[in-house]
């Protein structure tokens, strides 16, 4: 033992789901008074490992030691008694209850909301949070909800705090605030684990970084003694050139013209306000913005899935004639002869049917195509075989339900289907989220291939580096409004970052 106090240590921890080994013989230690960044690509088993610490999953084999004693964490309640608190990526809040009720949920003893409210206020004042304890969760914004989550863990007095990608939904300012809190907790002698895949955050906040790859523990490093390149190498296993191809657009012509698009959600909150832009053929239009600032609504409006308040979306045919897409549903759009493809963010909940096999999923777009009452099973089956073959989808068979495939393979199936009908417009939302480097490049190549064929590509992304390298132009959204459109080649990260948070920032190159 060194002079550092071990808070948690895990030995030979393994966990599998069906045939997928999420964690394989993981050994690691977490010290008191440090911030540990747990780094790894999506699907590398970070969340599974942390869920075992927080009692949501029970390990298949292996041991967990807390303060040197073996612990059996069978439920989140056990985890709390061991002083482990976790802020999950997907909020664990009950919508119809108030913030205070949610924060005190699971506590013992008599229900005393007044006392709880006082304690919540105290925590908020100490760290500078803003929470209305009486507000119901279903009336809250995303960042308000996360604040409630963090306050909940602090309220529980956790000694070991786990945060699963906490910054994904936060603005840079909110992230800064969070980091201040985390540093205070570290000073307090608490162990903080932050799951992330943003290297700049790792460098900014952590003392030590531990890396997982494909469910296995690769190693750890002192943050101050390493650099981004070394971390990336450990994460992906081999040197990666971060060059994404960007061919010059060939005679771009306007393909989609969006004018004054305004969208409100069911609660009447404005999601998009007066958005106008042009997407051109043979060009990739990147869309940047903090998550939840209107990207989803924008794509769904064009695809005919969103009720639109006002504005227009025009599709320009090759001969110059124009179709108004607003007011049409996806079937109408297809019947007009507009080959519009859309790779949505929610792959298994929207783009594909998890319980159907690959062949049946191919049918989703094309099952109406023949004139008879019956479905044609042969064509989709052939298409499935082609896609599995060409995109190197690793699957036991065509008849395997897509739910059983890994994230990268699911995405290959989805993108493969969407580009199979020679689209003239291709929209992708977070096309490489959760994918390993190799799958990501396969997807970039597929998108570029479409661009070369003259397809107008609208690429919504979260990783600014990728956006800057793949896009010809980047439209930056901020809070549902266009804060500017910049040239991909000329723009830099700082400008775009600024535009994402402030409307007046940045320049317009249009």
């Amino acid at each position: 033992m060194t002079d550092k106090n071990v808070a948690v240590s895990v030995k030979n921890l393994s966990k599998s789901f069906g045939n997928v080994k999420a964690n394989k013989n993981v050994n690691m230690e977490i010290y008191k008074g440090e911030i540990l960044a747990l780094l790894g690509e999506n699907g590398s088993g970070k969340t599974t490992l942390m869920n075992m610490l927080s009692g949501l999953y029970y390990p298949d084999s292996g041991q967990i030691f807390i303060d040197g004693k073996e612990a059996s964490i069978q439920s989140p309640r056990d985890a709390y008694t061991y002083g482990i608190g976790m802020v999950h990526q997907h909020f664990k809040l009950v919508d119809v209850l108030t913030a205070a009720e949610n924060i005190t949920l699971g506590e013992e003893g008599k229900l005393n909301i007044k006392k709880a409210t006082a304690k919540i206020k105290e925590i908020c004042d100490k760290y500078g949070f803003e929470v209305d304890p009486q507000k119901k969760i279903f009336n809250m914004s995303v960042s308000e909800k996360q604040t409630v989550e963090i306050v909940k863990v602090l309220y529980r007095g956790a000694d070991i705090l786990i945060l699963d990608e906490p910054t994904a939904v936060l603005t840079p300012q909110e992230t800064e605030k969070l980091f201040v809190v985390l540093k205070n907790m570290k000073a307090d002698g608490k162990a903080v684990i932050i799951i992330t895949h943003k290297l700049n955050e790792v460098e900014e906040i952590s003392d030590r970084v531990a890396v997982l790859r494909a469910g296995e523990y690769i190693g750890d490093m002192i943050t101050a003694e390493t650099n981004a390149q070394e971390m990336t190498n450990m994460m992906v296993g081999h040197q990666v050139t971060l060059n994404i191809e960007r061919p010059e657009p060939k005679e771009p012509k306007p393909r989609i013209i969006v004018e004054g698009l305004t969208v409100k959600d069911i609660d009447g909150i404005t999601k998009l306000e007066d958005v106008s832009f042009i997407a051109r053929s043979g060009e990739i239009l990147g869309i940047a913005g903090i998550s939840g600032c209107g990207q989803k609504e924008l794509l769904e409006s064009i695809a005919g899935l969103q009720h639109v308040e006002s504005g227009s979306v025009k599709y320009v045919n090759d001969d110059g004639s124009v179709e108004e897409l607003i007011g049409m549903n996806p079937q109408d759009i297809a019947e007009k002869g507009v080959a519009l493809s859309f790779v949505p963010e929610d792959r298994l909940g929207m783009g594909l049917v998890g319980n159907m096999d690959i062949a049946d999923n191919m049918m989703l777009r094309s099952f109406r195509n023949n004139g008879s009452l019956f479905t044609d099973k042969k064509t989709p089956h052939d298409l499935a075989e082609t896609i599995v073959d060409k995109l190197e989808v690793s699957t036991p068979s065509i008849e395997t339900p897509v739910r059983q495939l890994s994230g990268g393979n699911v995405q290959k199936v989805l993108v493969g289907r969407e580009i199979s009908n020679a689209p003239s417009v291709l929209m992708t939302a977070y096309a490489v989220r959760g994918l390993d480097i190799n799958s990501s490049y396969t997807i970039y190549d597929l998108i570029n291939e479409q661009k070369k064929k003259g397809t107008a590509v609208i690429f919504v992304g979260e990783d600014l580096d990728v956006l800057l390298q793949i896009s010809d132009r980047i439209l930056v959204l901020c809070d549902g409004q266009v804060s500017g459109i910049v040239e991909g080649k000329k723009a830099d990260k700082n400008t775009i970052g600024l535009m994402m948070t402030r409307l007046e920032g940045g320049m317009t190159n249009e």
Partner: protein
Amino acid sequence: MFDFLITFIPRAVGQGIPLLFGSTGEIVTEKSGNLNLGIPGVMYVGGICGVIGAFAYEQSGNVNGFLAICIPLLCSLIGSLLMGLLYCFLTVTLRANQNVTGLAMTTFGVGIGNFFGGSLIKLSGADVPSIALTKTSAYFSRSLPFAAKMGWFGKVFLSYGFLAYLAVIIAILASYILKRTRPGLHLRAVGESPATADAAGINVIKYKYVATCLGCMIAGLGGLYYVMDYASGVWSNDAFGDRGWLAIALVIFTIWRPNVSIFSSILFGGLYILYMYLPTGMEHMEVKELYKMIPYVVTLIVLVVTSMRNKRENQPPLSLGLPYFREER
């Protein structure tokens, strides 16, 4: 009109109490996210177990008031508890489909009720297809001692057996616990979002088991009240009818609020027997069948209207009918 009300209200209350037990039990169950369609079966079991207990005790000869109440009560509670445990084992532990399990429980429960009911009728050697437990019933339906002296007030408010008051007390208590106490808060969280409750350290399995079993026991009392008090101790097969389903209808009608159920159940009880108060010898006696339809039509309308208005607070518990598995991905 006044005289009519004085005779009508106690009958409506008598009809309403089994529904109140049933709906309170089902509300407690549903708040934990379990949609127990086995409630009609559970109420049958609650009734017949009470009958079996009372029958055995009456056969033993001397009847003591205290035991005459306790034995059937205990038998009824144990019977419905076993049904609750069965439902929980299948849907919570084994995560089976709740609709199918519930319907199977109703088939099974009604079968148990009629089978043992039929056997007892044969055992008692009665020449009518029913069994009368008049001695036990006398204890169950004994009204408050001063009811007779209080005129119309006594008749409307004090003329019922103790189970009727128990039903009201349980409903008020359930309402209070759900709204104001920690177990109530936890239970609502379990029914809304078991994953969240679990992450907060609430024992989801325990809450589901306890709520569902308590719910079944409460509902089973409805069956007991029906036989012992309303039907004056006479069990005849299928007499309980579709009251179990009416209780489930009440849950929707009251939008998951046991305190509202107190009045609504009496209203439903009144609607259920309103046809009996139609002047007899009318030209069109068939109309009375349509009156019996009113509770269901009204419930359907309430169900549709609440879904139309779509207010977040008035919706069924979010996870109603869904099994929970912590390691689901």
